[in-house]
């Protein structure tokens, strides 16, 4: 498997987009830490990047790369290789390169400037979201036949996870504000990896606020070790499930 991934990785590195992305993350992270007197403010900006830019880049980059490496996939298919191996190699190659971009671009500055619990939470969430959205992008790419549709689909998914979903949650919270909704919001948040990641960082960053009002419930749940396992578990499901569905589709697909 790693044999193939190596070629995928090589191909990605040659395209230079990934290097630009790494540099972008690195420059933004470092300049934030340099500009802001308070690390907490830099972390806040970083958090926004991780929750918004990271999923977007992961989705679009993966989708474009998938369609660009269609030839490679075709070539591999004529070789004695299973489809599963080919797709998983592609996934491993792309997610690993995006992940290393993130770890170099954001991870290193965070470790250098703010190796706090919040910093670690940011690194964890960023890594998890990279894996998750690469996986979701594979599903989008395998499902859509042509590049334009695939990228459109990926953008739509991003829009949904980053914005629309939260809007819907807020709508629900206000429509049913007379009912106790704490448990429900807990479940709802787990259904969106971006929300889950956000809450995970928030637990470290805004622990004081979360201790007030209903926040205490979230804090009790996510702050416990079982909450941590829950977060890791759900993130893993989010990373594996779309990939698994994509794999099933890919196996049945004509190429």
């Amino acid at each position, binding site marked *: 498997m790693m044999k193939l991934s190596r070629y995928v990785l090589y191909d990605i590195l040659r395209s230079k987009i990934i290097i630009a992305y790494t540099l972008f993350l690195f420059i933004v992270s470092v300049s934030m830490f340099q500009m*802001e*007197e*308070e690390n*907490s*403010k830099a972390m*806040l900006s970083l*958090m*926004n990047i991780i*929750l*918004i830019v990271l999923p977007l880049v992961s989705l679009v980059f993966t989708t474009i790369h998938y369609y660009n490496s269609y030839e490679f996939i075709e070539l591999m298919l004529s070789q004695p290789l299973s489809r599963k191996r080919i797709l998983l190699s592609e996934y491993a190659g792309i997610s690993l390169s995006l992940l290393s971009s993130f770890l170099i671009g954001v991870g290193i500055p965070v470790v250098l400037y703010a190796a706090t619990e919040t910093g670690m939470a940011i690194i964890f969430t960023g890594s998890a979201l990279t894996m998750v959205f690469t996986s979701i992008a594979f599903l989008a790419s395998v499902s859509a036949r042509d590049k334009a549709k695939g990228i459109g689909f990926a953008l739509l998914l991003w829009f949904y996870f*980053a*914005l629309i979903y*939260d*809007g819907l*949650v*807020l709508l629900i*919270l*206000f429509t049913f*504000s007379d009912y106790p*909704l*704490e448990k429900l*919001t*807990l479940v709802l*948040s787990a259904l969106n990896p*971006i*929300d889950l990641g*956000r*809450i995970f*960082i*928030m637990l470290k*960053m*805004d*622990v*004081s*606020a*979360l*201790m*007030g*009002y*209903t*926040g*205490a419930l*979230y804090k009790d749940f996510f702050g416990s070790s079982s909450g941590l396992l829950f977060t890791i578990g759900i993130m893993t499901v989010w990373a594996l499930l779309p990939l698994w569905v994509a794999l099933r589709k890919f196996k049945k697909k004509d190429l």
Partner: protein
Amino acid sequence: MRFIILFISLCISPFIFGNIIIVGKDKPINSIIKGIELAKNGDTVKVFPGLYKEGRITITKSITLIGINYPVIDGEKKVENMILSGSDIKVQGFHFIDSKHSSSNDYSAINIIDATRVIVENNKITNAHFGIHLANTTYCTINGNTILGQAVSEQSAGNGIHIWKSSYAFVTNNHIQGHRDGIYFEFVTESEIRNNKSENNIRYGLHFMFSHNNFYAYNIFRKNGAGVAVMYTHHVRMENNVFEENWGTASYAILLKDITDSKIANNKFISNTVGIFMEGCNRIAVNKNLFNKNGWAMKVQANCVDNVITNNNFKGNTFDIATNGTMVSSSFDNNYWDKYDGYDMNKDGIGDITYHPVSMYSMIIEQNPTALILLRSFMVTLLDKAEKAIPSLTPENLVDKKPKMKPFKL
């Protein structure tokens, strides 16, 4: 001349130095009560180490009682360990354990009642119901005591230092933890509370009502169940205190209810659910404080008037200011807000556009607390930005017209 001096000093000496009475388990006088009985005003009773189970020890004479190496006075959970009444009494260096507990009466390890100029110093008190209880006293000093309770519930627990209807009290250098309220004042005036540490108490670190003209300085209030609550009082000064990690659904680093004409300066509010909660407060000056990593740095209810919040640093708080109405009649000028993203064209260190410290989302959360779960989401950020452009929900006149570009050096 020399003779006269000698004569005078001989006459005064019993009053200045007094006699010294030694109490010890292996000494001729082996009970503290006996020692006190034998002492006259101005005498000193020195107690050697040992376990003294003598029931209630009462002192009404003006004597000094000194424990050497913390002799233990055991209340066996049956009595109050010591009662002090009168004037010029000093108790120092004892370890009080297991005073009587009750859910209906305020039993304490040291009960000071109808007294003046009493000094209770450098004692340890463990597992008491109330630690030190003062009622109807003047000029009493409570200094350097360590009071460790094991309170489990608010109903069954007593306060660490409880003072009622007293004036000119000095509460200094004490360490109180594990009680209901660390320090509790009711009708206490002209007093000074300095350098104490009150932490991990079930309810409040400091709690006072109707206690005017008191000065609180250099105290540390940490991890108390509901922080600090002070009510119905005027002319309070609180300076250089630290309020830390007071977390909870109804926890405030400091809750100010009906406080007027007071000053809160140079304090540090760090990692509290709410830094300062103000309700019905008038003419309070909040100066030069640091608000860092709090959930809400300040919650100012609409019924607060003429408070001046200035020269403070607001850093890393989830929300800076929250309020429950649209009318605001306090001033928030000239603070440093780390969320301020304005500019300073004329380089005078003051931002050229006003800062709105109340975010729209904090108003939403006031209405619907569950919505806190969406904090920091992209959508909420967009809502806040939109609100900044066209304010509709947030109070228009709650602004800092002169936000500082750089934090104050505090």
